[in-house]
């Protein structure tokens, strides 16, 4: 046990708190990779620390000690882990690992199915665009090795030619930058550490902002991009009144259209080196603390193993 062990806990909590602000202030093409990578690192570090706690506690079991050749009394003295804490750490790490594995399985299956769907749509698309005759306005990107943009005819009719260009650029951006992978990784990290949930939501919202910014840059007109968004959202809401839902559920979905439209009507966000550096520092501190904890624990086990060897040597020494 060491005070450094709380580093991933603090790191994940800080990242969770900062994530919403980060996606608002930084350009989304910077904030999304930064948030995703930091969230993954915090999740791994948190899991490693809990694993170390659980293992150090389990190591005081005499059978395990005999297998590993270390002295239990010495281990208890150099690295004491209270029983309730050890048991709690083991339980938490088991549950969270299970949750993360389940999430990862779901994400993999989803991406696999999307890829299979893309292959089935081969021959029905032009340059990766599939137009579906449908009365409901809808548009989305279907990721895969040959990803497809799917748009319904009702959505195309709701928009002007310039607005359609925004929509196509937005969806192409999702596929080109593989946004689905960022979302999947952040989701898995949040399953492994619930403190990272705000970060995962921010990544989900961030990829939409990223695609919006790409589309606005392509047409060189931020107002046009905002208008396309508004027109498409209203067309969808009018065609499907049941689609209007409570704001709590919506914020969980991550991408608030009002926020996206407001962001497009403001100036494009500019890179901020200080803020980026702050998050990178947070990640580095967590990584360093975790590695230091692991090294320290290793050293303590070495002490306990040395004590075990000594005892054994004494026992086996011929009586004088």
């Amino acid at each position, binding site marked *: 046990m060491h005070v450094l062990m709380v580093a991933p806990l603090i790191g994940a909590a800080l990242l969770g708190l900062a994530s919403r602000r980060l996606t608002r202030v930084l350009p989304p093409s910077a904030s999304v990779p930064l948030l995703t990578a930091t969230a993954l690192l915090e999740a791994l570090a948190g899991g490693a620390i809990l694993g170390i706690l659980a293992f150090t506690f389990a190591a005081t079991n005499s059978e395990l000690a005999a297998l590993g050749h270390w002295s239990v009394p010495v281990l208890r003295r150099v690295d004491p882990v209270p029983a309730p804490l050890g048991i709690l750490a083991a339980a938490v790490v088991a549950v969270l690992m299970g949750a993360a594995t389940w999430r990862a399985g779901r994400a993999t299956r989803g991406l696999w199915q999307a890829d299979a769907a893309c292959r089935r749509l081969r021959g029905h698309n032009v340059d990766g665009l599939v137009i579906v005759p449908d009365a409901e306005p809808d548009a989305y990107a279907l990721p895969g090795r040959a990803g497809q943009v799917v748009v319904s005819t009702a*959505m195309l009719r709701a928009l*002007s030619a310039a607005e*359609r260009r925004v929509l196509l650029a937005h969806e192409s951006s999702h596929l080109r930058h593989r946004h689905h992978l960022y979302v999947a990784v952040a989701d898995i990290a949040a399953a492994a550490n619930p403190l990272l949930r705000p970060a995962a939501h921010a990544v989900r919202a961030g990829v939409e902002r990223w695609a919006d910014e790409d589309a606005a840059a392509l047409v060189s007109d931020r107002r046009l991009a905002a*208008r396309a968004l508004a027109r498409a959202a209203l067309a969808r809401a009018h065609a499907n009144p049941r689609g209007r839902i409570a704001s709590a559920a919506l914020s969980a979905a991550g991408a608030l259209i009002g926020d996206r439209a407001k962001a497009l009507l403001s100036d494009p966000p500019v890179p901020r080196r200080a803020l980026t550096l702050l998050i990178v520092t947070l990640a580095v501190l967590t990584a360093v603390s975790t590695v230091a904890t692991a090294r320290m624990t290793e050293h303590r086990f070495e002490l306990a193993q040395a004590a075990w060897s000594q005892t054994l040597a004494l026992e086996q020494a011929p009586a004088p």
Partner: protein
Amino acid sequence: MTEARRPAGSLEQEVLAALAAAGRPLTPAEVREDLGRDLAYTTVLTALTRLYEKGALTRGRQGRAYAYTVAADSATLTARRMRQLLASDTDRATVLSRFVAELTPAEEQLLEQLLRDHGPPRRGRR
């Protein structure tokens, strides 16, 4: 799927989208007018011809020019396949991100306001 192979919304995509939105045969001149961008007639014609050769469009004589429509057969088939896909148990939350998802009433007001303040009348549509 490299960056080079996937341009951010190609002209062919735009042309196909314009024809699908129109829902009736359009001549190259009409397509060019609908797109409303500074495009050369021959550029639009090239895109239409390519789409026709790929089987994405059908065409018929209309006066001196051809008028183009989206080939219906493949599209109908696609629609059925897409509904099957979306009805299946795909983990959509991870995979799909819609261009626009659901709205709250407050957001609806905000967006209507936005269109009133920033929206010139739509071009090329009734």
